């Protein structure tokens, strides 16, 4: 193809307007219904990963602030838990509605702070956030029907620590079931993506949520550790890395704190020779390049039946060459920015390890912007199970391709991992789907689809991907004294 023809098909910029969101130059901690400075006055900057522009300066919670937030949540607990479920439900319905109303504002904000494409925040994150609050709102006055006894009780104060990859959605996954069941919360957003949680604090105020029921304490790992270790916290919920999850499990050992962990993954996406390959290609792309691969349930290991390996890889590379990487606010962008310089360095190092260990690297041909943190879609072929890039979670847009000959081999390879969060199966044969799905040791199995989420669908891992489920009736258990 000549340059002329290529440029004829280029997309004109189609940026979403930034004016829909008004980011203040500074934000405080949200404790007991008020924004306040950190006790020691510390702050940190949050930057837009696609431009490295400083978006705002945010108060940084320390141990003293955590103590204050837990105290506020404790004081609020008696009243909140004593409310009739139908009244708690109405607060949550209000929150869901306000989020729906302000969803474009939140989508732009999330894209600015996180770096993910507006298409994803607008079409996936925000609709799911609203749906999650709407779903759990409905449970608040029906808990006696949930299979946990006639009158299941809340636990008390929930300490929740969430990651940066789906900042507002992870907040929703944590706060909605906690509030529906009558708990109060102290939530620590990730240090690189604090803004949507702070905007959510404003939603709580608009909804008239009683003070202290939701407290937002942006900060770093020290704040999360203080929250997890706080003696007056009854429940700890964490989404993040397996290493930190293990540290948290050690910290709460011997206490009465209930713990749920949603951790790392190395999902296998298995493509059989009879699969609809065009659809499989779309599923593979969505599986590993959605949110720049910064997804715990990403299909980061592609297991292809040997006989269709070459055909599938050709189609996959063709498709990857059409992905548009760039300004996350552009409505045509497929691949946004990596969330932080630190994460980019981690992805870069693991990709280099892949090359050093002998896997064959292919990178989609695309220009990277000069500012910001970027990593082009990359895949590795000739990967064996012993390779680091087949074992460790990369948490970036890097796909490791392995092959298999028989279904048994596919299952054995898929299960050969410390993780067990997600898996994918592509085949036209129904009995094979069911047989393979039954043998995979993974909490979520997508057959002829991938990366689908719903508030009614329980999500969570086997093995070292954590324990407990979020979503659905199952998600209530994590916040009930059962």
């Amino acid at each position, binding site marked *: 193809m000549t340059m002329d023809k290529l440029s004829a098909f280029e997309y004109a910029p189609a940026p979403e307007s930034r004016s829909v969101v008004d980011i203040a130059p500074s934000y405080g901690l949200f404790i007991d219904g008020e924004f306040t400075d950190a006790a020691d006055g510390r702050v940190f900057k949050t930057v837009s990963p696609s431009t490295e522009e400083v978006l705002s300066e945010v108060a940084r919670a320390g141990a003293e602030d955590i103590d204050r937030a837990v105290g506020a949540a404790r004081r609020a607990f008696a009243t909140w838990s004593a409310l009739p479920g139908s009244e708690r439900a109405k607060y949550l319905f209000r929150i869901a509605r306000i989020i729906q109303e302000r969803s474009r504002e939140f989508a732009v904000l999330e894209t600015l702070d996180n770096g993910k494409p507006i298409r994803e925040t607008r079409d996936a994150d925000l609709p799911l956030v609203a*749906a999650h609050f709407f779903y759990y709102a409905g449970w608040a006055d029906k808990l006696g029907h949930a*299979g946990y006894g006639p009158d299941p009780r809340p636990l008390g104060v929930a300490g929740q620590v969430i990651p940066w990859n789906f900042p507002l959605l992870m907040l929703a996954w944590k706060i909605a079931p906690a509030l529906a069941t009558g708990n109060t919360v102290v939530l620590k957003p990730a240090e690189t993506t604090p803004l949507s949680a702070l905007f959510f604090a404003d939603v709580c105020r608009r909804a008239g949520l009683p003070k202290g029921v939701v407290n937002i304490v942006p900060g770093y790992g020290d704040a999360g550790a203080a929250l997890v270790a706080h003696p007056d916290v009854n429940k700890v919920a964490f989404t993040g890395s*397996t290493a930190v*999850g*293990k*540290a948290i*499990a*050690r910290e709460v*050992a*011997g206490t*009465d704190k209930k713990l749920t*962990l949603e*951790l790392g993954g190395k999902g296998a996406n298995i493509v059989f020779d009879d699969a609809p390959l065009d*659809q499989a290609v779309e599923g593979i792309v969505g599986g590993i390049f959605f949110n720049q691969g910064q997804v715990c349930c990403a299909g980061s290991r592609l297991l292809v039946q040997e006989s269709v390996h070459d055909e599938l890889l050709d189609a996959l590379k063709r498709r990857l060459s059409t992905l548009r990487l760039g300004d996350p606010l552009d409505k045509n962008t497929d691949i946004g920015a990596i969330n932080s310089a630190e994460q980019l360095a981690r992805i870069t190092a693991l990709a280099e390890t892949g090359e050093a260990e002998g896997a064959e690297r292919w990178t989609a041909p695309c220009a990277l912007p000069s500012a910001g943190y970027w990593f082009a879609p990359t895949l590795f072929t000739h990967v064996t199970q012993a390779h680091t890039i087949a074992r460790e979670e990369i948490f970036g847009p890097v796909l490791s391709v392995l092959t298999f000959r028989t279904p048994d081999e596919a299952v054995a390879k898929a299960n050969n991992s*410390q993780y067990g969060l997600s898996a994918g199966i592509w085949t036209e044969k129904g009995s094979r*789907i069911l047989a393979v*799905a039954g043998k*995979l040791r*993974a*909490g*979520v*199995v*997508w*057959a*002829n*689809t991938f990366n*689908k989420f*719903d508030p*009614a*669908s*329980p*999500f*969570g891992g*086997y*093995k*070292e991907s*954590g*324990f407990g*489920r979020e979503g*659905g009736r*199952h998600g209530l258990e994590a916040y009930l004294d*059962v």
Partner: protein
Amino acid sequence: MSEPTRLSVFKTYKLYVGGRFPRSESGRVYEVTRATSAAGAAAKGKSRSKGEGGGEWLANAPLSSRKDARDAVVAARKAFGGWSGATAYNRGQVLYRVAEMLQGRREQFVREVADAEGLSRSGAGAVVDAAIDRWVWYAGWTDKIGQIAGGANPVAGPYLNLSTPEPTGVVTVLAPQESSFLGLVSVIAPAIATGNTVVAVASERAPLPALSLGEVLATSDVPGGVVNILSGRTAEIAAPLAAHQDVNAIDLTGAAAQLAAELEVAAADNLKRVLRPRAEDWTADPGTDRLTAFLETKTVWHPTGSLGASGSAY
């Protein structure tokens, strides 16, 4: 000269691992004595020599080593595929068979439980009956828990979305220290009912009913390795099991608070599912807590699509 009284045959109590009855590989044993509250009553009968605990000696039990614990995990892992893959109906019949076998050996267990726990014959009888009934209770649960704990989820899209409970894998069970038989059955039965395999550490002071239960399981169609029973020092055996990378879960019921906390820390290394010790009344309705404690939820999605003009399903 009167006829000599017949000398009874003592039993050598052995471990139950992988469907076999090995001694501890360490060659060690420890003395098991009658429970102290029964010692007074026992003194009226013929007396045996006093054991190390001061009570009347009952038998020597294997003093399991770390190696015995690891061997038991290997056996339990080997059995997991077959047991978790068996139909729920089949598992139910096997558990019911355990109740049948126990019923037939009721007298033996009444004697052993009376000795182990210092109970009267009628008190021990009630315990054994409750234990038999507990097997029946869990036998009936095997093919029902899936409908209670799983189901179809009404997602907002054209997808079939189904959640199914599945067994966690190899579960280490520290059986309660006081309730040597009913408590033991109450922690083993729910774990295996759902398809897990178990390494059980018997009550340290009163392991004999547990070791005899192994003989019942061996003749109840329970595949070898599904339940493995170790006797010895709970702290010594539990430490390697809590740290074992091929154990998926640990029930700390039989651990005192300090030990339980230490084991929970060790268990975090591979994120074992942990059931902490709690106040228990083994005679109460067991509910479903212990069934669901060692289950994973697997959720499977598939497009439903629509049958368009092309007849394509998606």
